[in-house]
């Protein structure tokens, strides 16, 4: 091999790892430096639209003891409309449904909206669009009433009283997690470039709240 060839070989051997080091630490600018982001992110349990009925003793007797439920409900969940306005101009108008193929899981809102920097009035409304109260609640109430009447007559071997109580508690707990029919937030924000303002649902206060971090 000629000295020139050897030198080229050495240079090539040096260039390859240097190239790897360089390509390993490239920098990218994925975000528009002038924009801020309004991030909508929350999860909540949607209202159930369902028909409930009390199971008879015969039906319960056919089910293994650990799977018995005094009241069974079938149905789906309500859909919600998400509307976001900035200084009265509509930015988002989206229908949100529960998660999962059958939409029977908690709903989830996740949206990043790029906004120009500066002050703006932001309005976020999250409203239930399916009417659920009359049929579902009515049928559930009827089912409960029927069940309560029957419980006194039921033999503990058919429906364990503890299990029955736990079922009621669980139903109450789930109802407590259901998002209110209307959630709204109207607030004036000062958007700083590359800052993220998060609007989320506070399940304890049952309302939308905004959080912001310090811009760098």
């Amino acid at each position, binding site marked *: 091999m000629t000295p020139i060839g050897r030198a080229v070989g050495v240079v090539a051997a040096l260039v390859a790892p240097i190239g790897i*080091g360089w390509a390993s630490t490239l920098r990218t600018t994925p975000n528009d430096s002038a924009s801020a982001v309004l991030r909508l992110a929350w999860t909540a349990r949607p209202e159930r639209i369902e028909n409930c009925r009390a199971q008879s003793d015969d039906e319960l007797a056919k089910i293994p003891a650990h799977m018995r439920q005094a009241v069974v409900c079938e149905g789906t969940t309500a859909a919600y409309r998400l509307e976001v306005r900035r200084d009265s101009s509509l930015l988002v108008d989206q229908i949100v449904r529960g998660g999962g193929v059958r939409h029977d899981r908690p709903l989830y809102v996740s949206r990043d909206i790029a906004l120009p920097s500066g002050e703006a009035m932001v309005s976020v409304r999250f409203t239930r669009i399916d009417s659920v109260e009359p049929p579902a609640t009515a049928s559930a109430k009827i089912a409960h009433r029927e069940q309560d009447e029957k419980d006194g007559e039921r033999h503990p071997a058919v429906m364990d009283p503890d299990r029955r109580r736990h079922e009621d508690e669980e139903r109450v707990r789930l109802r407590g997690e259901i998002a209110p029919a209307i959630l709204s937030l109207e607030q004036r924000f000062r958007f700083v470039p590359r800052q993220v303002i998060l609007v989320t649902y506070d399940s304890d206060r049952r309302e939308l709240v905004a959080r912001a971090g310090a811009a760098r």
Partner: protein
Amino acid sequence: MVRTVERLALRVLAACDATGNRLYGWRFNPLYQSGTIVVALYLTIVATGLWLILFYRVGSPWESIASLTANLWIGNWVRGLHRYASDAAVVATAVHAFRMFAQGRSWGPRALAWVSGGVLLFLLLLCGWTGYVMVWDTFGEYLARESARLLDALPILSEPTSRAFTGERPVPSVFFFVTLFAHIGLPLGMGVVFWLHIKRLERPVLLPPRPIAWGTMGLLAGVAIAHPLVMAPKANAFVLPAEIPVDVFFAFWLPLVRAVPGGVALSGLVLAAAVLLVLPALTARRGTARPAPSTVDEEICTGCRQCSLDCPYGAIQMIERTSRRSMEVARVDSTLCVSCGICAGSCAPMGVGPPGRSGREQVAGVQAFLAAPERRPGAVVAICCAHGAVAHRSALAAAEAVVYPIDCAGNLHTSVIEMLLRGGVGGVLVFACPPRDCLNREGPRWLVERMYHEREAELQARVDRARVRVVHVNAGEQHEAVSALQRFALDLSALAAPAVDRAAAVDAVCEASTTGVHS
């Protein structure tokens, strides 16, 4: 279509290999060692990773890595070497896959190696993903958020994974624990898949020559020291970073998916992975294009085991013979045989080989060649591998050699060389591929062993070695091939005119026979 791409890729590969050979010689050409370099890098990554893991804290991932990175003596360069070795492993894996594709080594019995190689590449990328995410700097967060966006397109997830990164609540420690667990567990899983990857190879070469292994690690360590890693800012869900450091080797897919919906991006990536995995079905040769596996003539087989020893794919087993003659007889497993024909060159009595390429058929071919009226007595015969030097056929012919193509140098039976010389040719120059470039793995190796080290079926001692030479050139080294021919012709010119002796019989005795009765 696929065949056209293969041919184009082969031309590119040959040109790159030729450049590598010119710069480093074929023994130290790193392009020929892409697979073994990955193994050497894997060991480097594991060694440095074991050190780095001692300093990692799942409760404060960024802080622990930042503290390590700030330490130039025991932290920064080790982390740099860990990272650059991982990057180099991706590059070497891509080169290795490209070579296998270009050379058509992705289908048939080699499909297992191809598919397991694809899985290894996926695991390597996944391992890199976990490595970057567990640091939880801006790049790690960017990777995690984009990956979660893609994953959330799957309708089976009741709760989106991206919820963990929105800033609603701090990312839980358990996330980093699972990521760390995967970062350690995936390389172990890669070991199992690697075993599958080389399962069908006999005598797999696992590590590159020492100069390449130490040179690669030394150069990467040098870059790690000369170009110290700089810690990216800590991930913060409430701030969009102005700049993010991106490792293109592990995040090459990010720019491709950023502008498209998660479902489309995920479908695209899954489709690309599926194409990679089903490639053996696309590249498979069918019908007459598919070379037939070797067969054994049990009447001729002496049970010497040489073909079984030489087969690079473990496709020949010795089984108990039920009839007369030797105790054992060779049996070819057609599901493992790639039809390389190396067994044809290893069988002294010429009883095994692919149809049309067995020793006996090679001898018949050379007899016809010698009987051809247009043959020039005293000319140099250039035996060229069909996968390499045959590309220089015209140039060699212009340099007054008679080109004699053969499917693979390892396929060549030494009796062919002897018969050519006895037939009055001036000399035999065998153009074999560089050993690590051999389509059939061990062709050139066994050829040299048979010609110069008495490996069965050896070139007989009575053959004048001054009239025989082996040269390693690939399809991109025409100048080297012609130069080698001219040098050989010059050396031959100093010898006396060749004698013609067609009377002597070809030796068909297998001296390595352990159990058989010689024919």
